[in-house]
């Protein structure tokens, strides 16, 4: 049981997919125009993640190694289609505002990344909890970005007016550029905390993310970006 709690802690804090691993950036930036959209996207992704982790972990001894990627993709895509229909049927307003980004959960690197690096190597129960932890971490990330953007950009939180009437909303924060700025500030804040901790001599895991290179990335196997870096390194050495 201890291991399961450890997995949830890992997903929420230690390897938070949004702030630490910097995975799944497309939905993180695109759907966080309001807090409620962030929660909706986060929970949909969590549902897919838990189900796919469970099934892939069950099938881990059956799926041959050479075709594992296509097999994972089929599993994930099926669950995404199910979630797509459920949202369309039961929460049509959320379905409309998330739009294209629901089917695009298929290519969210968090899901394939967890399938490849955790679920395909571990028993069913820890894999389920890994999915829950990672999914909740993602939900927390999206929701906090959504709250910041909604607060600054519309003066509301979860659709309720919180700022006084004299506040002039900075609409740019719910438009595309705002997404980049808010995420940049949140990552910078986190870097500051990390730097302070490191100065005090505490052990901190390095932040990763595509812009920082592939060496420490958890989804190296899925993404393949390291191939490019190795290639360009070879060329530099050759020249």
């Amino acid at each position: 049981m201890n291991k399961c709690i450890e997995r949830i802690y890992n997903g929420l804090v230690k390897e938070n997919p949004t702030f630490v691993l910097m995975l799944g950036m497309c939905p993180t930036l695109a759907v966080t125009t309001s807090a409620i959209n962030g929660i909706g996207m986060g929970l949909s992704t969590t549902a897919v993640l838990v189900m796919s982790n469970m099934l892939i972990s069950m099938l881990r001894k059956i799926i041959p190694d050479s075709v594992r990627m296509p097999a994972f993709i089929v599993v994930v895509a099926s669950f995404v289609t199910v979630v797509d229909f459920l949202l369309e049927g039961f929460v049509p307003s959320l379905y409309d505002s998330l739009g294209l980004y629901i089917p695009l959960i298929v290519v969210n690197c968090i899901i394939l990344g967890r399938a490849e690096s955790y679920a395909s190597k571990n028993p069913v129960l820890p894999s389920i909890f890994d999915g829950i932890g990672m999914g909740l971490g993602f939900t927390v990330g999206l929701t906090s970005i959504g709250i910041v953007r909604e607060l600054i950009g519309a003066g509301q939180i979860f659709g309720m007016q919180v700022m006084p009437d004299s506040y002039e909303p900075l609409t740019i924060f719910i438009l595309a550029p705002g997404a980049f700025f808010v995420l940049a500030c949140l990552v910078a804040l986190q870097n500051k905390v990390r730097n302070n901790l490191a100065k005090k001599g505490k052990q901190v895991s390095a932040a990763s993310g595509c812009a920082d290179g592939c060496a420490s990335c958890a989804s190296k196997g899925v993404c393949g970006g390291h191939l490019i870096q190795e290639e360009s390194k070879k060329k530099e050495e050759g020249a």
Partner: protein
Amino acid sequence: MQELLLIAVGSAFVNNVVLSQFLGICPFLGVSKNVKTAAGMGGAVVFVITIASFVTGLIYRFILGNPNIMGGELEYLNTIVFILVIAALVQFVEMFLKKVMPPLYQALGVYLPLITTNCAVLGVALTNVQDGYDILTGVVNGFATAVGFLVAIVLMAGIREKTEHNDVPESFKGTPIVLVTAGLMAIAFFGFSGLI
């Protein structure tokens, strides 16, 4: 013809795939350290998206959305079929280029495996279906979207090469400053919104 041109300008600049729709952010942040690799990645994306929009357009028109097969009710398979077709297509393109056009393979080869998980490819295929584009319009839309990606990633790489040695505040080093740059670029791209 004019309609096609409007769609092309719209998807390349006005609704830029990276800066306003947030598709393909991962390669945009990850492969934009220098202009040469960025251009290679952009080229590979143009190549794959154009072919993928054609192939997925064919599959949708003649199989999934065909009213003669199951009354056109196979549409719910769009996501699964498209992602598998794209994955297979990328593998196939890689083999084909290696055999037939080695110079092109040299230029684009390493970037091809990355593209399967690039959400822009699947995004374009799904948008084409959602907006009810025919095959030609879909291919034009795909090509233009990919050109938008190429423009954005090359610009980004150019800026990053310049800012590499700038004195950035400690906490903003690395990812945050790249994101701020992207945000400023997104504001600049708002300037296109009056075009159509």
